[in-house]
């Protein structure tokens, strides 16, 4: 994918990436492409992070009858994250396994997986593809804007970092970066409006993510 100033092709890029993901069953990696072409990745250049399956989950929160907050967890999320802190750029392609839904109460899981809500049989995965990264002065990621595809419907989504940090992990002997991200969406925008307004249309996404530098 070459950077393009053409708006239409920029919008199409996530779709192309998604098609590649679906076709190959793997997340394409620019770093691997660079290695394959013989170019050594400079230290300050793009670094590919492998998502840590023990620390990468999404939880959704939705208000139930104006009273309590219903939560469901999906994950681990798979995919790859490419970040170039010096160039202040990044690229992320995530596959979110909706079939792993776990609310803690199996009858509720079964209800939420039905075609009028998560529709997990028809769409077992959701996707988040983004290349619009924002950083603070110290180089920490503050926001990632991209496209979220849920139930086969793609919509713009912004994930804001509540916390972000990198550490040299003593056990893995590698750099680990990650944090807590939050996003907000309306489920009716994706055709999952069943039960509104008794169960709120507004959904808050709470995402734990840690990536291991490859």
């Amino acid at each position: 994918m070459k950077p393009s100033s053409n708006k239409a092709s920029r919008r199409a890029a996530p779709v192309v990436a998604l098609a590649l993901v679906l076709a190959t069953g793997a997340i394409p990696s620019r770093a691997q492409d660079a290695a394959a072409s013989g170019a050594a990745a400079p230290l300050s250049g793009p670094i590919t992070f492998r998502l840590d399956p023990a620390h990468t989950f999404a939880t959704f929160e939705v208000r139930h009858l104006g009273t309590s907050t219903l939560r469901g967890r999906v994950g681990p999320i798979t995919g790859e994250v490419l970040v170039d802190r010096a160039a202040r750029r990044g690229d992320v392609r995530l596959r979110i396994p909706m079939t792993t839904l776990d609310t803690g109460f199996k009858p509720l899981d079964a209800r939420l997986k039905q075609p009028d809500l998560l529709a997990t049989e028809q769409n077992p995965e959701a996707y988040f593809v983004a290349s619009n990264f924002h950083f603070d002065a110290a180089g920490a990621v503050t926001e990632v804007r991209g496209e979220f595809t849920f139930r086969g419907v793609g919509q713009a989504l912004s994930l804001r970092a509540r916390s972000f940090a990198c550490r040299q992990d003593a056990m893995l002997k590698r750099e680990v970066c990650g944090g807590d991200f939050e996003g907000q969406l309306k489920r009716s925008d994706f055709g999952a409006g069943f039960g509104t307004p008794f169960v709120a249309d507004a959904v808050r996404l709470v995402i734990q993510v840690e990536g291991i530098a490859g």
Partner: protein
Amino acid sequence: MMKKLALLAALAAVGAAAHAEPATYALDPSHTFVTFEIGHMGTSTNRGRFDKKEGTVTIDKAAKTGKLDVTVDTTSLNTGTPQFNKHISSEEMLDVAKYPTAEFHGDKFTFNGDKVTEIAGNLTLHGKTNPVTLKALNYNCYQSPMLKREVCGGDFEATIARGQWGVNYGENYGFPDNMKLVIQVEAVKQ
């Protein structure tokens, strides 16, 4: 004269209590969960949830008093990662083989009008008991169209220092003592 006044006050109190008797609510297992949140190496937040619990709440809206009794099955820990479930359940942390339940008994309810804002009580975990106050972020009652009963509940939070309950694992290498309890609760009038 004083005796007569005291008798009158006692009668008035009894009358009021009879007028707005305390109601008992059973916890709805599909909308009642305890999730804990704890920082991981200064990077992200780890979460775990206890899936099995039971309990009752008694609320007297007129007298503004209440009582909450909850028993959590600590063997129902669910983090989404089997090796974490195993490790946290082990002797190094919750030791659920020895302490298969945690209990919270709250008997000091604070109200703002009809709404519960705080529940203070004692949390027994890992064989130790310490006071904990649960603060309400949301509280509401509604008439359930499906159950045809009143349901009350909300979201409660508390931050606890796990060392007070003798759970100190990893404090020397970056796992914080403080952890947050995030509680969803709905209870159905009996």
